[in-house]
């Protein structure tokens, strides 16, 4: 059992090493700069520029964060500081369910509702033309998918703040919101950052739902109404052909390795912050 309990740590390393070993051929053959900063993606001619896909991922992630962070923080504050018990107990399973819905379902829903909404309502409102399959549609769907992560981590952070601190603030005549602002948000700031970073890394790696609504155009997007092509979608869309074109599989494994490294970095960062927050409150 001792051996088994080191499985999780070993597994993280094994996945990373496996991906890097498979990506080695392309790292050995192509210069680093052309892989990450070239916009030319034509596997048949041997051009593997990941830049458009990296930009696609960044755009979609950014849009989802801008949309999700305020909503999820306000929800978490309400549930932790304001809500009567009944509301909290009613909302908790709903947030769990939102986290448990498969990404394909989010994708189908996005195609049915969000894509037409963006294409026919939101884009014309801003004087843009869009098919609807866009960075914005991907960002909206992603935002909903990362809500549960940010909400539940923030809730844990808020509940670790000692109650007497709030009482001290209230007894000085602060309103409830002022207490939230100056005590809860201030004390919980690090934890909130960790919650947002966890949401971010969730958004970074989400595949199917985004793939279905984002348009998959291999060009760096110029506005939120343009189509984009995030890294996970690139991997998922091309797994079929990758074994028949030289270096193609190495390029996709490199994309997966990049994805993993970024997600690992954010996760380790967020978890370290959370451990510190937990230790301080204990």
């Amino acid at each position: 059992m001792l051996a088994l309990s080191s499985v999780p740590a070993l597994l993280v390393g094994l996945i990373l090493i496996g991906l890097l070993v498979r990506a080695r051929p392309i790292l050995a053959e192509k210069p680093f700069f052309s892989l990450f900063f070239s916009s030319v993606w034509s596997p048949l001619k041997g051009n593997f520029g990941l830049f458009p896909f990296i930009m696609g991922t960044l755009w979609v992630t950014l849009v989802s964060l801008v949309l999700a962070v305020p909503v999820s923080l306000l929800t978490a504050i309400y549930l932790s500081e304001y809500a009567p018990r009944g509301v909290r107990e009613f909302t908790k399973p709903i947030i769990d369910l939102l986290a448990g819905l498969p990404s394909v379902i989010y994708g189908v829903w996005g195609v049915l509702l969000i894509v037409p909404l963006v294409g026919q309502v939101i884009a014309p409102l801003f004087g843009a033309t869009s098919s609807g399959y866009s960075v914005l549609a991907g960002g909206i769907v992603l935002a909903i998918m990362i809500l549960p992560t940010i909400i539940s981590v923030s809730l844990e952070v808020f509940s670790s703040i000692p109650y007497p601190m709030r009482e001290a603030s209230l007894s000085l005549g602060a309103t409830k919101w002022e207490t939230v602002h100056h005590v809860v948000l201030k004390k919980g700031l690090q934890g909130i950052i960790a919650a947002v970073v966890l949401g971010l890394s969730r958004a970074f790696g989400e595949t199917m739902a985004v793939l279905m609504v984002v348009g998959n155009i291999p060009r760096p997007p110029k506005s939120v109404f343009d189509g984009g092509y995030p890294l996970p979608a690139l991997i998922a869309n091309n797994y079929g052909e990758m074994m028949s074109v030289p270096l193609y599989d190495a390029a996709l494994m490199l994309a997966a390795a990049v994805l993993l490294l970024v997600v690992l970095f954010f996760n380790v960062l967020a978890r370290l912050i959370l451990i510190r927050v937990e230790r301080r409150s204990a």
Partner: protein
Amino acid sequence: MSRLRPVPVLRRRKLKERIFRALMAASVLLVVGCLALIVGTIIWKGLPAMNLAMVTQTPKGGYYLGREGGILNAIIGSLYLASGATLLAILFSLPVVLYINIYAKRNSRLASMTRFSLDVLWGIPSIVYGAFGFIIMIFFGLKSSLLAGIVAVGLLEFPIMSRAADEVIRMVPRELLEASYSLGATRLETALKVVLRQCLPGLLTAVLIAFGRGIGDAASVLFTAGFTDRIPTSLLQPAATLPLAIFFQLGTPFPEVQQRAYASAAILTLIILVISLLARGLGRRYTRHIIK
């Protein structure tokens, strides 16, 4: 002449309170509304397209062009795959979780390291598990098959189940363990006969949560499980899965096939809803052996 005017200030502070209260209420409604909207849309679009053939037949020739058949292959495939993956995940999670909670010292470095790595594993996107499953597959010379899919999804479920089970087992009162040791039980006996029994409902919930994640995941099976119109009869055959069936049907240019994608999405949503309800219900039942 200067005069203290506390009233407008107070009014402004109260107004601020009200504005934020309204914003918060709106946010909560938005979150709850999103779930209602998603489930509502899927069921509303899916139910009219649903029929008995969908859930009792495999695809006949030309199914993806709009001909006869159903998606029984994908439903059964997904159930096989998620069950296998869940078994695999239990096999690895349970020893790990029991070890860090019963054998390792409380709050030991090993235990916190393991929890930390589990959290990190939990954050790894499913497409990466898919790619890693693919590498394993190539390494062992396997083709895309039920077995490869089970390995990839099993890896994906492992941290989810472990963390959920850990939360439960961590809550076992220390006195209970000590009572068991004082009666002369070994740690293994304590783990298997006392702790597992005490935690059974919570553990079942953990298993169901992991199963639900496994059955709904598409990105990890894309590389590994393949897709076929037949129901697999061995671990080495490829298997269709429900999420991929939805994805492929939606990707066809034929409206009648897209209708079936909506119906399939409704089926998957219903399965997930049932699993969630079961997980909640089980948490309440089977509490017979629990010592509070």
